[in-house]
C-alpha cells in the first residue's frame, strides 16, 4: 500500500458501512491484524478505515493517585492502563498506530457528538501522534451510502475543538467527583468494618438519588385520607351508561349517604355540551421521547431502548439516536424515505397516502440539536432478521415518522348534565371523528373512546342504581426508569447519552431496587451522609450550574481550566470534612450495607413462628446455603429448609399458590427459571413426595 487516507470510526459496524459506501465498487476489502478489523476502500485514492471500540482512552489518576483520595491530578491514558479486562485495547491501539504511519491524511468519522468527538480526538492525538490538528471531520446522521458519500466529499476542514474541550471538561469533572467521593465513601466503610463494598456517588448520581429519596420519604410517610365518589347506572334511550356525580370528591360519609339516598327514580337532561377539538400530530422522536414511549408500550427500560436504537443505527435503518432534536429538516428527503418504506407490506398503503400529498410538512417540536435531526427511519430495509425488540423499535420509529406528516385528528367530547332530585350528574362520552395522523400510528395510539347514545335536552334518564365508592387519597407514584429519565430531562441534569447509565448505576450500587423504584436503606444512608457533609454535591442547582459552565466552553464563553478549577474548589473542603469524620461515616455506611444485604436476603415472613422472617443463610461450617428463620438466633424458631446448591437464588416476593408459603426463584445454568416452595406438605407436591422427593422443587411455569 502507498500513502492513503486513514478514517477513524467509533465502532466496527460503522467502519464496515463507511468502507462499503466509499468504495467505488462497494466491495471494500476486509483486513485483520491481531484480531483488529479494518477496511481498505478505493475511491479517488486509497482509503483505510479503522474502527475504535468506543472510548479507547480514559481519565485516570497518575501513579501517585492510585488507591487514595483526594486526588486532583489526572491524565488521559489508554484504557488498558486504567481498567482491568481492557488488555485487548493495547493491541487495538498498536494496530491503529501502525496504520497511521503510512497515512498522509486523516478523517475523524466518529459519531458527531461530544463522546464521538472525544473518541476521535484522543485516537488522533495519542495513537496517531498529534494528528488531531490536521484531521478533517465527517459529519453524518445516518449510515446510508448517500449520506456517507456526501459527508466524505464535504468533510469539515478540522475537528470541532470547542465541542472536544467541553467533552473533555465533562469527563474530567465527572471523574474528579466520582473518584474522590466514591473513594471517600468506600474507604470510610472499609476502614470501619474491614469489609469491602463498592459505594459511589457522582455529579449526577447524587442529585438523582436525592429525587428518589425525597419521593420515597413522601411515600413511606403517607397517611391516606378517605373520600367518596358517587356514580350512577343510568339508562338513556335504552342504553346503559355511567353518570358521575358533579362533585368528584365528597369528603364525609354523611354527605355521600345523603346523595345516595336522595337520587332515585328518574332525572332529566338539562344541558348537552358538544365540543369538537383537534389533536395535533405527535412530534418526531428525540432520544428521551423514544425511551419514554418504548417503556410505556413495550416496558423496555431506557438503557435497553438506547441499545436497540444504536444497533438499528449501525444497521443504517434509523438515524443517529443520541439526539435531542425534535426537527426533521427537508434535506433528509421525506419522499425518498417514504418511497423506500412503501415496499414493506405493512407500510405500503400508509406511505402511498402520504406520497399522494402535494406538500409534506412534519409537525415538529421546539427542541433543536446542532449536530443531528430527530430520529427517523432511513428508508433502508433490514438486511438481516431483526429480533422482536428490534422490530418493535424500528416499527415505532417508522410509524412515528409517518404520523408526524398526518393531519390533526378531530375528536368530539359530549357532556350531558342530568338533574335528579336537585343533584347534578354528568354523562360523558368521547370519540374520534377523523383519525388524521392516528391512522399512521395505529397500534400505538392511546385514545379513549366512549360512545354515548343520542342525548338531547329534556330527555328523561332512568337512574337504575347508585354506586357509592369509598376511596382514599393515594401517595405520589414511585418513579420508574422511564419517569426518572423524564425528570432528569426536565431539570436538565446528565446528558442524553449518559442518563440511562446513571440510573443503572443506582441499581448496581444497591441504592435502589425494583422496576417501580424503591430506595434501599443504603440509598437513604448515602444520601443522608452526603446531605450532612457535602450538601452542595447533591444539589441540583450546583449540577446544573456546572452543566451550564461546561456548555459555555462550547460557545467559547468559558475556559476548560477555569471550570475544572471551580469544580475542585467545591470538592476540596468536602473531602477534607469526610476525612475528618471518617469513623462516624464509616459506621453508618457499614451498618446500612449490612441492613441492605439482610433486606435482600429476606424471602418472606416465617410460616412456622409467624413473627420471624425467612432469610437465605450460608453456613460458616459447611459453606452450604439454606433458608432459616431470623428468630433462630433468639431461640424462638427452628425452621430451616434446604436450598439447591447450584445456580442463582432470587427472592421473588411471591407466595406459593398451593399453600401460601413464600417462594424463591431458582435459575441453574442457561435453563429456564423455576419457583421453589419450601413447604414439604404443599398440596402442589402431592405425588412428588411418594417418589422420594422430600424437599421437592416445583416447576411452576409463568408464576
Amino acid at each position: 500500500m502507498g500513502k492513503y487516507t486513514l478514517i477513524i470510526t467509533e465502532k466496527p459496524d460503522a467502519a464496515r458501512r463507511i468502507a462499503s459506501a466509499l468504495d467505488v465498487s462497494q466491495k471494500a476489502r476486509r483486513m485483520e491484524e491481531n484480531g483488529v478489523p479494518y477496511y481498505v476502500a478505493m475511491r479517488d485514492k486509497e482509503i483505510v478505515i479503522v474502527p475504535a471500540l468506543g472510548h479507547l482512552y480514559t481519565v485516570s489518576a497518575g501513579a501517585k493517585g492510585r488507591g487514595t483520595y483526594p486526588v486532583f491530578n489526572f491524565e488521559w491514558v489508554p484504557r488498558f492502563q486504567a481498567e482491568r479486562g481492557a488488555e485487548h485495547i493495547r493491541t487495538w491501539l498498536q494496530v491503529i498506530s501502525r496504520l497511521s504511519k503510512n497515512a498522509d491524511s486523516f478523517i475523524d468519522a466518529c459519531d458527531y457528538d461530544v463522546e464521538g468527538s472525544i473518541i476521535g480526538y484522543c485516537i488522533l492525538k495519542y495513537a496517531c501522534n498529534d494528528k488531531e490538528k490536521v484531521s478533517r471531520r465527517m459529519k453524518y446522521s445516518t449510515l446510508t451510502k448517500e449520506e456517507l458519500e456526501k459527508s466524505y466529499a464535504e468533510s469539515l476542514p478540522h475537528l470541532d475543538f470547542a465541542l472536544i474541550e467541553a467533552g473533555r471538561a465533562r469527563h474530567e469533572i465527572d471523574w474528579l467527583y466520582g473518584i474522590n467521593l466514591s473513594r471517600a465513601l468506600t474507604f470510610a466503610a472499609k476502614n470501619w468494618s474491614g469489609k469491602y463494598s463498592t459505594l459511589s456517588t457522582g455529579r449526577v448520581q447524587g442529585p438523582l438519588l436525592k429525587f428518589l429519596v425525597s419521593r420515597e420519604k413522601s411515600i413511606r410517610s403517607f397517611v391516606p385520607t378517605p373520600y367518596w365518589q358517587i356514580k350512577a347506572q343510568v339508562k338513556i334511550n335504552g342504553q346503559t351508561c355511567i353518570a358521575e356525580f358533579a362533585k368528584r370528591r365528597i369528603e364525609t360519609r354523611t354527605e355521600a349517604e345523603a346523595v345516595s339516598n336522595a337520587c332515585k327514580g328518574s332525572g332529566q337532561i338539562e344541558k348537552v355540551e358538544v365540543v369538537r377539538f383537534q389533536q395535533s400530530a405527535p412530534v418526531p422522536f428525540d432520544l428521551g421521547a423514544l425511551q419514554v414511549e418504548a417503556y410505556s408500550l413495550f416496558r423496555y427500560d431506557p438503557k435497553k431502548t438506547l441499545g436497540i436504537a444504536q444497533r438499528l443505527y449501525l444497521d443504517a435503518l434509523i438515524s443517529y439516536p443520541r439526539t435531542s432534536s425534535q426537527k426533521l429538516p427537508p434535506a433528509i428527503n421525506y419522499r425518498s424515505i417514504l418511497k423506500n418504506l412503501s415496499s414493506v407490506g405493512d407500510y405500503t398503503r400508509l406511505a402511498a397516502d402520504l406520497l399522494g400529498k402535494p406538500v409534506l410538512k412534519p409537525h415538529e417540536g421546539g427542541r433543536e440539536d446542532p449536530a443531528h435531526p430527530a430520529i427517523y427511519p432511513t428508508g433502508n430495509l433490514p438486511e438481516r432478521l431483526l429480533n422482536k425488540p428490534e422490530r418493535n423499535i424500528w416499527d415505532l420509529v417508522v410509524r412515528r415518522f409517518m404520523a408526524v406528516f398526518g393531519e390533526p385528528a378531530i375528536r368530539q367530547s359530549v357532556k350531558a348534565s342530568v338533574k335528579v332530585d336537585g343533584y347534578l350528574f354528568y354523562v360523558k362520552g368521547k370519540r374520534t371523528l377523523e383519525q388524521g395522523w392516528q391512522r399512521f400510528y395505529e397500534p400505538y395510539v392511546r385514545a379513549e373512546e366512549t360512545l354515548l347514545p343520542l342525548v338531547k335536552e329534556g330527555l328523561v334518564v332512568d337512574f337504575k342504581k347508585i354506586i357509592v365508592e369509598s376511596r382514599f387519597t393515594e401517595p405520589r407514584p414511585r418513579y420508574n426508569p422511564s419517569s426518572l429519565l423524564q425528570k432528569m430531562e426536565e431539570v436538565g441534569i446528565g446528558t442524553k447519552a449518559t442518563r440511562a447509565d446513571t440510573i443503572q448505576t443506582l441499581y448496581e450500587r444497591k441504592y435502589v431496587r425494583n422496576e417501580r423504584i424503591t430506595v434501599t436503606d443504603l440509598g437513604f444512608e448515602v444520601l443522608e451522609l452526603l446531605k450532612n457533609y457535602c450538601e452542595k454535591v447533591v444539589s441540583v442547582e450546583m449540577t446544573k450550574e456546572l452543566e451550564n459552565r461546561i456548555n459555555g466552553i462550547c460557545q467559547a464563553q468559558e475556559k476548560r481550566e477555569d471550570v475544572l478549577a471551580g469544580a475542585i474548589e467545591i470538592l476540596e473542603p468536602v473531602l477534607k470534612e469526610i476525612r475528618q469524620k471518617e469513623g462516624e461515616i464509616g459506621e453508618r455506611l457499614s451498618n446500612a450495607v449490612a441492613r441492605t444485604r439482610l433486606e435482600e436476603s429476606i424471602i418472606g415472613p416465617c410460616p412456622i413462628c409467624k413473627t420471624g422472617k425467612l432469610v437465605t443463610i450460608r453456613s460458616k461450617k459447611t459453606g452450604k446455603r439454606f433458608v432459616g428463620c431470623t428468630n433462630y438466633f433468639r431461640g424462638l424458631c427452628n425452621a430451616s429448609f434446604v436450598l439447591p446448591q447450584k445456580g442463582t437464588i432470587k427472592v421473588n416476593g411471591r407466595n406459593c399458590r398451593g399453600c401460601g408459603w413464600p417462594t424463591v426463584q431458582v435459575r441453574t445454568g442457561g435453563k429456564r427459571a423455576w419457583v421453589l416452595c419450601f413447604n414439604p406438605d404443599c398440596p402442589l407436591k402431592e405425588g412428588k413426595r411418594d417418589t422420594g422427593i422430600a424437599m421437592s422443587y416445583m416447576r411452576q411455569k409463568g408464576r
Partner: protein
Amino acid sequence: MQCPICGRKVDEQGYCKLHAKVRHLIIKRYDGWRKAMNISWKEYLSEIAKNPLTGEWAREVARHLIETED
C-alpha cells in the same frame, strides 16, 4: 436514647427525626378522618395501620401508638 421504632437517635418527642415527623402528620390528618367518618382516635389509628396505602413509616408509628397509648 433510641427511637422505639427504628433504634435511631431520638430527636424529639421520644422518636427519631423521621418518625417524629410522621407522628406529627398522623395527628394532623386525624381531623379529616374524624369529620369524614366520625371515628375515635383509636379507631383512626387502627384504620390507618391496616390501610394498604399507608406508608411504611406511618404504619409503624400508628402501630406503636396503638400499643403504647392507653
